[in-house]
Protein backbone atom coordinates (compact mmCIF):
# COMPACT_ATOMS: atom_id res chain seq x y z
CA UNK A 1 0.00 0.00 0.00
CA UNK A 2 2.69 2.38 1.08
CA UNK A 3 4.76 1.30 -1.82
CA UNK A 4 1.86 1.97 -4.22
CA UNK A 5 1.31 5.42 -2.78
CA UNK A 6 4.96 6.31 -3.25
CA UNK A 7 4.90 5.03 -6.78
CA UNK A 8 1.74 6.99 -7.50
CA UNK A 9 3.22 10.14 -6.02
CA UNK A 10 6.37 10.01 -8.12
CA UNK A 11 4.40 9.61 -11.35
CA UNK A 12 2.08 12.57 -10.62
CA UNK A 13 3.16 15.88 -12.14
CA UNK A 14 4.33 18.46 -9.58
CA UNK A 15 2.03 21.41 -8.98
CA UNK A 16 2.87 24.59 -10.89
CA UNK A 17 4.69 27.17 -8.72
CA UNK A 18 2.44 28.82 -6.19
CA UNK A 19 1.32 32.31 -7.25
CA UNK A 20 2.60 35.15 -5.09
CA UNK A 21 0.28 36.18 -2.32
CA UNK A 22 0.40 39.97 -2.08
CA UNK A 23 -1.94 40.34 0.91
CA UNK A 24 0.82 40.35 3.62
CA UNK A 25 2.74 43.03 1.71
CA UNK A 26 -0.32 45.25 1.43
CA UNK A 27 -1.20 44.67 5.07
CA UNK A 28 2.27 45.71 6.25
CA UNK A 29 2.28 48.76 3.97
CA UNK A 30 -1.12 49.86 5.35
CA UNK A 31 0.02 49.46 8.96
CA UNK A 32 3.21 51.44 8.26
CA UNK A 33 1.19 54.27 6.72
CA UNK A 34 -1.23 54.30 9.69
CA UNK A 35 1.68 54.47 12.12
CA UNK A 36 3.32 57.29 10.15
CA UNK A 37 0.08 59.26 10.27
CA UNK A 38 -0.24 58.85 14.03
CA UNK A 39 3.37 60.00 14.48
CA UNK A 40 3.13 62.85 12.02
CA UNK A 41 -0.16 64.32 13.22
CA UNK A 42 0.84 63.76 16.86
CA UNK A 43 -2.38 61.92 17.56
CA UNK A 44 -2.09 61.01 21.20
CA UNK A 45 -4.09 58.11 22.52
CA UNK A 46 -3.15 59.13 26.08
CA UNK A 47 -5.42 62.18 25.75
CA UNK A 48 -8.24 59.81 24.89
CA UNK A 49 -7.55 57.71 27.97
CA UNK A 50 -7.30 60.72 30.29
CA UNK A 51 -10.31 62.32 28.61
CA UNK A 52 -12.70 59.45 29.20
CA UNK A 53 -13.68 60.83 32.60
CA UNK A 54 -14.31 64.33 31.21
CA UNK A 55 -16.33 62.90 28.37
CA UNK A 56 -18.46 60.87 30.75
CA UNK A 57 -19.10 64.05 32.73
CA UNK A 58 -20.05 65.96 29.57
CA UNK A 59 -22.44 63.27 28.33
CA UNK A 60 -24.08 63.06 31.76
CA UNK A 61 -25.32 66.62 31.24
CA UNK A 62 -27.61 65.16 28.53
CA UNK A 63 -29.09 62.82 31.13
CA UNK A 64 -32.37 64.67 31.57
CA UNK A 65 -34.00 65.21 28.19
CA UNK A 66 -36.52 68.05 28.37
CA UNK A 67 -39.60 67.17 26.35
CA UNK A 68 -41.72 70.20 27.34
CA UNK A 69 -41.62 71.52 23.76
CA UNK A 70 -42.14 68.13 22.12
CA UNK A 71 -44.88 69.33 19.76
CA UNK A 72 -42.55 72.05 18.45
CA UNK A 73 -39.77 69.51 17.95
CA UNK A 74 -42.08 67.24 16.02
CA UNK A 75 -43.13 70.15 13.81
CA UNK A 76 -39.44 70.91 13.17
CA UNK A 77 -38.80 67.26 12.41
CA UNK A 78 -41.67 67.54 9.93
CA UNK A 79 -39.88 70.44 8.23
CA UNK A 80 -36.71 68.34 8.03
CA UNK A 81 -38.64 65.42 6.53
CA UNK A 82 -40.25 67.78 4.01
CA UNK A 83 -36.79 69.11 3.09
CA UNK A 84 -35.56 65.57 2.49
CA UNK A 85 -38.67 64.68 0.49
CA UNK A 86 -38.35 67.71 -1.77
CA UNK A 87 -34.63 67.15 -2.18
CA UNK A 88 -35.34 63.58 -3.29
CA UNK A 89 -38.09 64.83 -5.61
CA UNK A 90 -35.67 67.27 -7.28
CA UNK A 91 -33.15 64.47 -7.67
CA UNK A 92 -35.74 62.10 -9.08
CA UNK A 93 -36.93 64.60 -11.68
CA UNK A 94 -33.40 65.58 -12.73
CA UNK A 95 -32.25 61.95 -12.88
CA UNK A 96 -35.33 60.95 -14.87
CA UNK A 97 -34.27 63.28 -17.67
CA UNK A 98 -30.49 62.93 -17.37
CA UNK A 99 -30.11 59.15 -16.90
CA UNK A 100 -31.26 58.07 -20.39
CA UNK A 101 -28.78 60.54 -21.90
CA UNK A 102 -26.04 59.00 -19.74
CA UNK A 103 -26.83 55.37 -20.65
CA UNK A 104 -24.65 54.09 -23.47
CA UNK A 105 -27.42 52.02 -25.10
CA UNK A 106 -30.02 54.80 -25.12
CA UNK A 107 -28.09 58.04 -25.56
CA UNK A 108 -28.76 59.83 -28.84
CA UNK A 109 -25.07 60.69 -29.29
CA UNK A 110 -21.75 59.56 -27.72
CA UNK A 111 -20.83 63.17 -26.98
CA UNK A 112 -24.10 63.72 -25.11
CA UNK A 113 -23.31 60.59 -23.13
CA UNK A 114 -19.84 61.89 -22.18
CA UNK A 115 -21.07 65.36 -21.22
CA UNK A 116 -24.02 64.18 -19.11
CA UNK A 117 -21.84 61.57 -17.38
CA UNK A 118 -19.40 64.32 -16.41
CA UNK A 119 -22.24 66.58 -15.22
CA UNK A 120 -23.50 63.74 -13.00
CA UNK A 121 -19.98 63.13 -11.68
CA UNK A 122 -19.66 66.82 -10.87
CA UNK A 123 -23.00 66.89 -9.03
CA UNK A 124 -21.98 63.86 -7.03
CA UNK A 125 -18.61 65.33 -6.20
CA UNK A 126 -20.09 68.50 -4.65
CA UNK A 127 -20.67 67.68 -0.95
CA UNK A 128 -24.22 68.62 0.08
CA UNK A 129 -22.96 70.44 3.19
CA UNK A 130 -20.93 72.74 0.96
CA UNK A 131 -23.85 73.21 -1.44
CA UNK A 132 -26.10 74.04 1.52
CA UNK A 133 -23.65 76.72 2.69
CA UNK A 134 -23.67 78.26 -0.79
CA UNK A 135 -27.46 78.14 -1.14
CA UNK A 136 -28.02 79.51 2.38
CA UNK A 137 -25.76 82.44 1.48
CA UNK A 138 -27.64 82.98 -1.77
CA UNK A 139 -31.24 82.33 -0.72
CA UNK A 140 -31.21 82.99 3.02
CA UNK A 141 -32.01 80.69 5.94
CA UNK A 142 -34.76 78.09 5.58
CA UNK A 143 -35.63 74.68 4.19
CA UNK A 144 -35.46 75.68 0.49
CA UNK A 145 -31.64 75.89 0.28
CA UNK A 146 -31.47 72.57 2.12
CA UNK A 147 -33.79 70.88 -0.34
CA UNK A 148 -31.84 72.32 -3.28
CA UNK A 149 -28.50 71.19 -1.85
CA UNK A 150 -29.79 67.66 -1.30
CA UNK A 151 -31.41 67.69 -4.73
CA UNK A 152 -28.27 68.70 -6.61
CA UNK A 153 -26.00 66.30 -4.75
CA UNK A 154 -28.30 63.27 -4.98
CA UNK A 155 -29.29 63.91 -8.63
CA UNK A 156 -25.72 62.90 -9.33
CA UNK A 157 -26.20 59.64 -7.46
CA UNK A 158 -29.64 58.76 -8.79
CA UNK A 159 -28.66 59.74 -12.32
CA UNK A 160 -25.67 57.41 -12.22
CA UNK A 161 -27.63 54.54 -10.63
CA UNK A 162 -30.46 54.87 -13.16
CA UNK A 163 -28.07 55.16 -16.10
CA UNK A 164 -26.29 52.00 -15.02
CA UNK A 165 -29.58 50.13 -14.63
CA UNK A 166 -30.63 51.31 -18.08
CA UNK A 167 -27.37 50.01 -19.51
CA UNK A 168 -28.18 46.57 -18.11
CA UNK A 169 -31.53 46.44 -19.97
CA UNK A 170 -31.41 43.44 -22.29
CA UNK A 171 -30.23 44.45 -25.74
CA UNK A 172 -32.94 42.30 -27.31
CA UNK A 173 -35.66 44.33 -25.56
CA UNK A 174 -34.13 47.58 -26.81
CA UNK A 175 -33.91 46.18 -30.33
CA UNK A 176 -37.48 44.91 -30.21
CA UNK A 177 -38.74 48.42 -29.52
CA UNK A 178 -36.22 50.16 -31.78
CA UNK A 179 -37.15 47.89 -34.69
CA UNK A 180 -40.69 49.30 -34.69
CA UNK A 181 -39.24 52.71 -35.54
CA UNK A 182 -39.63 54.23 -32.06
CA UNK A 183 -37.59 57.40 -31.49
CA UNK A 184 -35.40 58.31 -28.49
CA UNK A 185 -38.10 59.36 -25.97
CA UNK A 186 -40.29 56.45 -27.03
CA UNK A 187 -37.47 53.94 -26.67
CA UNK A 188 -36.72 55.27 -23.19
CA UNK A 189 -40.35 55.10 -22.10
CA UNK A 190 -41.13 51.69 -23.57
CA UNK A 191 -37.90 49.68 -23.40
CA UNK A 192 -36.04 51.60 -20.67
CA UNK A 193 -38.08 52.66 -17.66
CA UNK A 194 -40.54 49.74 -17.54
CA UNK A 195 -37.63 47.29 -17.45
CA UNK A 196 -35.89 48.99 -14.50
CA UNK A 197 -38.90 50.30 -12.59
CA UNK A 198 -38.33 48.14 -9.51
CA UNK A 199 -34.62 48.72 -9.30
CA UNK A 200 -35.18 52.45 -9.76
CA UNK A 201 -37.78 52.60 -6.96
CA UNK A 202 -35.34 50.79 -4.68
CA UNK A 203 -32.60 53.34 -5.38
CA UNK A 204 -35.02 56.24 -4.86
CA UNK A 205 -36.07 54.90 -1.46
CA UNK A 206 -32.44 54.49 -0.48
CA UNK A 207 -31.74 58.10 -1.49
CA UNK A 208 -34.79 59.33 0.47
CA UNK A 209 -33.53 57.43 3.49
CA UNK A 210 -30.11 59.00 3.12
CA UNK A 211 -31.58 62.50 2.58
CA UNK A 212 -33.57 62.31 5.83
CA UNK A 213 -30.35 61.62 7.73
CA UNK A 214 -28.52 64.36 5.87
CA UNK A 215 -31.33 66.94 6.20
CA UNK A 216 -31.06 66.74 10.00
CA UNK A 217 -27.41 67.71 9.76
CA UNK A 218 -27.95 70.41 7.12
CA UNK A 219 -29.94 72.41 9.69
CA UNK A 220 -26.64 73.02 11.47
CA UNK A 221 -25.46 75.25 8.61
CA UNK A 222 -28.75 77.17 8.62
CA UNK A 223 -30.82 75.16 6.20
CA UNK A 224 -33.88 75.01 8.44
CA UNK A 225 -35.63 72.19 10.26
CA UNK A 226 -34.67 70.37 13.42
CA UNK A 227 -30.93 70.74 12.82
CA UNK A 228 -31.20 74.51 13.13
CA UNK A 229 -33.03 74.16 16.45
CA UNK A 230 -30.36 71.75 17.72
CA UNK A 231 -27.68 74.19 16.65
CA UNK A 232 -29.38 76.95 18.70
CA UNK A 233 -29.90 74.91 21.89
CA UNK A 234 -26.31 73.65 21.75
CA UNK A 235 -25.07 77.22 21.48
CA UNK A 236 -27.16 78.10 24.55
CA UNK A 237 -25.75 75.11 26.50
CA UNK A 238 -29.35 73.91 26.99
CA UNK A 239 -28.49 70.25 27.45
CA UNK A 240 -32.01 69.08 28.33
CA UNK A 241 -33.57 70.43 25.14
CA UNK A 242 -30.61 69.31 23.03
CA UNK A 243 -30.97 65.78 24.37
CA UNK A 244 -34.68 65.77 23.54
CA UNK A 245 -33.98 67.01 19.99
CA UNK A 246 -31.29 64.39 19.46
CA UNK A 247 -33.66 61.66 20.62
CA UNK A 248 -36.40 62.87 18.25
CA UNK A 249 -33.91 62.80 15.35
CA UNK A 250 -32.64 59.33 16.25
CA UNK A 251 -36.16 57.91 16.58
CA UNK A 252 -37.23 59.37 13.23
CA UNK A 253 -34.15 58.10 11.43
CA UNK A 254 -34.63 54.62 12.87
CA UNK A 255 -38.27 54.56 11.77
CA UNK A 256 -37.48 55.80 8.24
CA UNK A 257 -34.59 53.37 8.00
CA UNK A 258 -36.75 50.38 8.83
CA UNK A 259 -39.68 51.57 6.73
CA UNK A 260 -37.49 52.03 3.66
CA UNK A 261 -35.70 48.70 4.19
CA UNK A 262 -39.09 46.99 4.47
CA UNK A 263 -40.40 48.70 1.32
CA UNK A 264 -37.26 47.83 -0.63
CA UNK A 265 -37.60 44.18 0.41
CA UNK A 266 -41.18 44.23 -0.81
CA UNK A 267 -40.03 45.63 -4.16
CA UNK A 268 -37.42 43.01 -4.98
Amino acid at each position, binding site marked *: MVHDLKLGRSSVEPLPPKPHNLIPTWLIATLVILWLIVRDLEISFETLVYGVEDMAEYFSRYGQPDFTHLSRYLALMGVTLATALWGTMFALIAAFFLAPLAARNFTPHPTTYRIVREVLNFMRAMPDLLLALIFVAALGLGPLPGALALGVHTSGFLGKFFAESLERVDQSVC*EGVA*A*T*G*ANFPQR*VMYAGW*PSILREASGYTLYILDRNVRMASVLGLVGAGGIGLALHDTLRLFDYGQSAALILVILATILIIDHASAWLRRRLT
Partner: protein
Amino acid sequence: MPTISIRSVSKRFSNGFEALKGIDAEIRSGSFTVVLGPSGAGKSTLLRLVNGLETPTTGEICIGDETVNGRNLRHIRSRVAMIFQQFNLVDRLSVVTNVLTGRLAHRSWIGSVFYLFRKEDIDIAQEVLSRVALTDKAWSRADKLSGGQQQRVGIARALAQQPKVILADEPVASLDPISSEEIMILLREIRDQDGITVVVNLHQVELARRFADRIIGMNSGKIVFDGKPEHMTPSVLRTIYQREGIEDDPSLDMALAYA
Protein backbone atom coordinates in the same frame (compact mmCIF):
# COMPACT_ATOMS: atom_id res chain seq x y z
CA MET B 1 -45.66 48.39 -53.74
CA PRO B 2 -42.06 48.19 -52.57
CA THR B 3 -39.61 45.59 -53.65
CA ILE B 4 -36.61 44.88 -51.44
CA SER B 5 -33.43 45.31 -53.47
CA ILE B 6 -30.18 44.11 -52.00
CA ARG B 7 -27.28 45.39 -54.10
CA SER B 8 -23.79 43.92 -53.66
CA VAL B 9 -24.06 44.11 -49.90
CA SER B 10 -21.24 42.96 -47.66
CA LYS B 11 -20.88 43.27 -43.95
CA ARG B 12 -17.73 43.05 -41.86
CA PHE B 13 -18.10 43.41 -38.10
CA SER B 14 -15.67 45.40 -35.99
CA ASN B 15 -14.15 42.13 -34.72
CA GLY B 16 -13.13 41.35 -38.31
CA PHE B 17 -15.75 38.66 -38.96
CA GLU B 18 -17.11 38.90 -42.47
CA ALA B 19 -20.78 37.91 -42.18
CA LEU B 20 -21.85 38.76 -45.72
CA LYS B 21 -19.63 38.59 -48.80
CA GLY B 22 -21.38 40.39 -51.64
CA ILE B 23 -25.09 39.61 -51.66
CA ASP B 24 -27.38 40.52 -54.56
CA ALA B 25 -31.09 39.79 -54.44
CA GLU B 26 -34.46 41.24 -55.33
CA ILE B 27 -37.42 40.27 -53.19
CA ARG B 28 -40.70 40.87 -54.96
CA SER B 29 -43.50 42.52 -53.01
CA GLY B 30 -46.15 40.15 -51.72
CA SER B 31 -43.87 37.12 -51.86
CA PHE B 32 -43.09 34.60 -49.12
CA THR B 33 -39.34 34.08 -49.12
CA VAL B 34 -37.42 31.75 -46.83
CA VAL B 35 -33.73 32.32 -46.24
CA LEU B 36 -32.28 28.91 -45.45
CA GLY B 37 -28.86 28.06 -44.15
CA PRO B 38 -26.77 26.75 -41.28
CA SER B 39 -26.03 28.82 -38.18
CA GLY B 40 -23.48 31.53 -38.92
CA ALA B 41 -24.35 31.69 -42.62
CA GLY B 42 -25.27 35.38 -42.32
CA LYS B 43 -29.07 35.03 -42.46
CA SER B 44 -29.69 37.16 -39.37
CA THR B 45 -27.25 39.82 -40.46
CA LEU B 46 -29.00 40.06 -43.82
CA LEU B 47 -32.41 40.60 -42.21
CA ARG B 48 -31.04 43.07 -39.66
CA LEU B 49 -29.53 45.09 -42.50
CA VAL B 50 -32.92 45.37 -44.21
CA ASN B 51 -34.47 46.80 -41.01
CA GLY B 52 -31.48 49.06 -40.38
CA LEU B 53 -30.41 47.36 -37.14
CA GLU B 54 -27.03 46.98 -38.84
CA THR B 55 -25.47 49.10 -41.56
CA PRO B 56 -23.79 47.46 -44.57
CA THR B 57 -20.02 47.86 -45.00
CA THR B 58 -20.45 48.16 -48.76
CA GLY B 59 -23.44 48.12 -51.08
CA GLU B 60 -26.95 49.32 -50.38
CA ILE B 61 -30.43 48.12 -49.58
CA CYS B 62 -33.55 49.76 -50.99
CA ILE B 63 -37.14 49.35 -49.94
CA GLY B 64 -39.06 50.47 -53.02
CA ASP B 65 -37.22 53.62 -54.10
CA GLU B 66 -35.94 54.46 -50.62
CA THR B 67 -32.39 53.55 -49.61
CA VAL B 68 -32.00 52.37 -46.01
CA ASN B 69 -29.71 54.80 -44.18
CA GLY B 70 -29.37 56.51 -40.83
CA ARG B 71 -31.64 59.43 -41.70
CA ASN B 72 -34.82 57.64 -42.76
CA LEU B 73 -34.65 54.77 -40.25
CA ARG B 74 -37.90 55.73 -38.52
CA HIS B 75 -39.78 55.82 -41.80
CA ILE B 76 -38.23 52.59 -43.07
CA ARG B 77 -38.90 50.74 -39.82
CA SER B 78 -42.51 51.93 -39.72
CA ARG B 79 -43.00 50.00 -42.97
CA VAL B 80 -40.62 47.09 -42.32
CA ALA B 81 -41.60 45.19 -39.17
CA MET B 82 -39.38 42.65 -37.48
CA ILE B 83 -40.06 39.43 -35.57
CA PHE B 84 -37.29 37.91 -33.47
CA GLN B 85 -36.19 34.49 -32.32
CA GLN B 86 -36.34 35.55 -28.65
CA PHE B 87 -39.55 37.56 -29.28
CA ASN B 88 -37.87 40.70 -27.83
CA LEU B 89 -40.96 41.87 -25.97
CA VAL B 90 -40.80 44.22 -23.00
CA ASP B 91 -41.39 41.69 -20.20
CA ARG B 92 -42.74 44.13 -17.65
CA LEU B 93 -45.39 45.62 -19.95
CA SER B 94 -48.80 44.17 -20.67
CA VAL B 95 -49.53 42.36 -23.91
CA VAL B 96 -51.64 45.28 -25.17
CA THR B 97 -48.90 47.81 -24.47
CA ASN B 98 -46.39 45.61 -26.26
CA VAL B 99 -48.71 45.50 -29.25
CA LEU B 100 -49.24 49.27 -29.11
CA THR B 101 -45.46 49.68 -29.32
CA GLY B 102 -46.03 48.86 -32.98
CA ARG B 103 -47.88 52.19 -33.34
CA LEU B 104 -45.04 54.35 -31.97
CA ALA B 105 -43.44 55.18 -35.30
CA HIS B 106 -46.77 56.51 -36.56
CA ARG B 107 -47.21 58.88 -33.62
CA SER B 108 -45.22 61.76 -32.20
CA TRP B 109 -43.63 61.28 -28.80
CA ILE B 110 -45.89 63.75 -27.00
CA GLY B 111 -48.82 61.48 -26.19
CA SER B 112 -47.04 58.18 -26.51
CA VAL B 113 -44.46 58.81 -23.77
CA PHE B 114 -47.39 59.02 -21.33
CA TYR B 115 -48.79 55.74 -22.72
CA LEU B 116 -51.71 57.64 -24.27
CA PHE B 117 -52.97 56.27 -27.56
CA ARG B 118 -55.65 57.35 -29.97
CA LYS B 119 -58.86 55.40 -30.29
CA GLU B 120 -57.81 54.19 -33.76
CA ASP B 121 -54.57 52.75 -32.37
CA ILE B 122 -56.45 50.92 -29.62
CA ASP B 123 -58.79 49.54 -32.28
CA ILE B 124 -55.84 48.32 -34.34
CA ALA B 125 -54.35 46.63 -31.25
CA GLN B 126 -57.67 44.97 -30.49
CA GLU B 127 -58.01 43.73 -34.05
CA VAL B 128 -54.51 42.25 -34.31
CA LEU B 129 -54.81 40.62 -30.89
CA SER B 130 -57.96 38.83 -31.92
CA ARG B 131 -56.16 37.80 -35.09
CA VAL B 132 -53.41 36.05 -33.13
CA ALA B 133 -56.08 34.71 -30.72
CA LEU B 134 -54.74 36.39 -27.60
CA THR B 135 -57.61 38.73 -26.72
CA ASP B 136 -58.08 37.04 -23.34
CA LYS B 137 -54.41 37.62 -22.46
CA ALA B 138 -54.55 41.33 -23.30
CA TRP B 139 -53.73 42.56 -19.79
CA SER B 140 -51.30 39.83 -18.78
CA ARG B 141 -47.67 40.76 -18.39
CA ALA B 142 -45.76 39.65 -21.47
CA ASP B 143 -43.34 37.43 -19.51
CA LYS B 144 -46.23 35.40 -18.04
CA LEU B 145 -47.01 33.93 -21.47
CA SER B 146 -45.64 30.75 -23.01
CA GLY B 147 -43.07 30.93 -25.79
CA GLY B 148 -45.60 30.33 -28.57
CA GLN B 149 -47.92 32.98 -27.13
CA GLN B 150 -45.07 35.47 -26.77
CA GLN B 151 -44.17 34.96 -30.41
CA ARG B 152 -47.80 35.62 -31.34
CA VAL B 153 -47.56 38.90 -29.40
CA GLY B 154 -44.43 39.62 -31.44
CA ILE B 155 -46.44 39.03 -34.62
CA ALA B 156 -49.29 41.20 -33.32
CA ARG B 157 -46.80 44.01 -32.62
CA ALA B 158 -45.49 43.67 -36.18
CA LEU B 159 -49.04 43.69 -37.60
CA ALA B 160 -49.96 46.76 -35.54
CA GLN B 161 -47.31 48.64 -37.50
CA GLN B 162 -49.42 47.99 -40.63
CA PRO B 163 -46.17 47.28 -42.46
CA LYS B 164 -45.46 46.53 -46.09
CA VAL B 165 -42.81 43.98 -45.16
CA ILE B 166 -42.43 41.58 -42.23
CA LEU B 167 -38.96 40.18 -41.52
CA ALA B 168 -38.89 37.15 -39.23
CA ASP B 169 -35.50 36.17 -37.85
CA GLU B 170 -35.66 32.48 -36.85
CA PRO B 171 -39.21 32.96 -35.50
CA VAL B 172 -39.66 29.31 -34.55
CA ALA B 173 -36.15 28.34 -33.42
CA SER B 174 -37.08 28.52 -29.71
CA LEU B 175 -40.51 26.92 -30.04
CA ASP B 176 -41.90 23.38 -29.91
CA PRO B 177 -43.14 21.77 -33.17
CA ILE B 178 -46.84 22.57 -32.59
CA SER B 179 -46.22 26.25 -31.82
CA SER B 180 -43.80 26.42 -34.76
CA GLU B 181 -46.51 25.15 -37.06
CA GLU B 182 -49.00 27.74 -35.72
CA ILE B 183 -46.54 30.58 -36.19
CA MET B 184 -45.65 29.54 -39.75
CA ILE B 185 -49.33 29.21 -40.70
CA LEU B 186 -50.00 32.64 -39.22
CA LEU B 187 -47.17 34.18 -41.25
CA ARG B 188 -48.40 32.50 -44.39
CA GLU B 189 -51.93 33.81 -43.71
CA ILE B 190 -50.61 37.33 -43.27
CA ARG B 191 -48.97 37.12 -46.70
CA ASP B 192 -52.10 35.64 -48.32
CA GLN B 193 -54.69 37.97 -46.78
CA ASP B 194 -52.84 41.28 -46.38
CA GLY B 195 -50.39 41.00 -49.25
CA ILE B 196 -47.53 41.81 -46.88
CA THR B 197 -44.11 40.72 -48.13
CA VAL B 198 -42.76 38.11 -45.71
CA VAL B 199 -39.11 37.13 -45.41
CA VAL B 200 -38.37 34.34 -42.92
CA ASN B 201 -35.02 33.00 -41.76
CA LEU B 202 -35.15 29.32 -41.04
CA HIS B 203 -32.83 26.44 -40.54
CA GLN B 204 -35.51 23.74 -40.79
CA VAL B 205 -35.49 22.41 -44.35
CA GLU B 206 -38.89 20.78 -44.03
CA LEU B 207 -40.66 24.00 -42.96
CA ALA B 208 -38.95 25.92 -45.75
CA ARG B 209 -40.16 23.44 -48.37
CA ARG B 210 -43.75 23.59 -47.15
CA PHE B 211 -44.21 27.33 -46.70
CA ALA B 212 -41.93 29.17 -49.11
CA ASP B 213 -42.62 30.46 -52.63
CA ARG B 214 -38.94 30.99 -52.99
CA ILE B 215 -35.94 29.78 -51.07
CA ILE B 216 -32.66 31.64 -50.82
CA GLY B 217 -29.93 29.28 -49.63
CA MET B 218 -26.98 30.82 -47.84
CA ASN B 219 -23.67 29.45 -46.73
CA SER B 220 -20.81 31.39 -45.11
CA GLY B 221 -21.97 34.82 -46.22
CA LYS B 222 -22.88 33.97 -49.82
CA ILE B 223 -26.05 33.04 -51.67
CA VAL B 224 -25.56 29.48 -52.92
CA PHE B 225 -29.11 28.74 -54.08
CA ASP B 226 -32.04 30.85 -55.19
CA GLY B 227 -35.17 29.24 -56.54
CA LYS B 228 -38.44 27.50 -55.96
CA PRO B 229 -38.73 24.87 -53.22
CA GLU B 230 -39.23 22.07 -55.76
CA HIS B 231 -35.82 22.86 -57.27
CA MET B 232 -34.11 22.25 -53.97
CA THR B 233 -32.57 18.86 -54.68
CA PRO B 234 -30.43 16.85 -52.27
CA SER B 235 -27.30 18.11 -54.01
CA VAL B 236 -28.48 21.72 -53.50
CA LEU B 237 -29.05 20.98 -49.82
CA ARG B 238 -25.51 19.64 -49.64
CA THR B 239 -24.16 22.96 -50.93
CA ILE B 240 -26.29 24.95 -48.49
CA TYR B 241 -25.32 22.94 -45.43
CA GLN B 242 -21.77 22.11 -46.46
CA ARG B 243 -19.20 22.96 -43.85
CA GLU B 244 -16.10 24.82 -44.88
CA GLY B 245 -13.12 22.61 -45.66
CA ILE B 246 -15.02 19.35 -45.16
CA GLU B 247 -15.54 17.54 -48.48
CA ASP B 248 -16.92 14.24 -47.28
CA ASP B 249 -19.13 14.89 -44.27
CA PRO B 250 -20.93 11.80 -42.90
CA SER B 251 -22.96 13.78 -40.34
CA LEU B 252 -24.23 16.01 -43.16
CA ASP B 253 -25.47 12.99 -45.10
CA MET B 254 -27.20 11.65 -42.00
CA ALA B 255 -28.86 14.97 -41.23
CA LEU B 256 -30.06 15.54 -44.78
CA ALA B 257 -31.40 12.02 -45.11
CA TYR B 258 -34.06 12.93 -42.57
CA ALA B 259 -34.68 16.48 -43.76
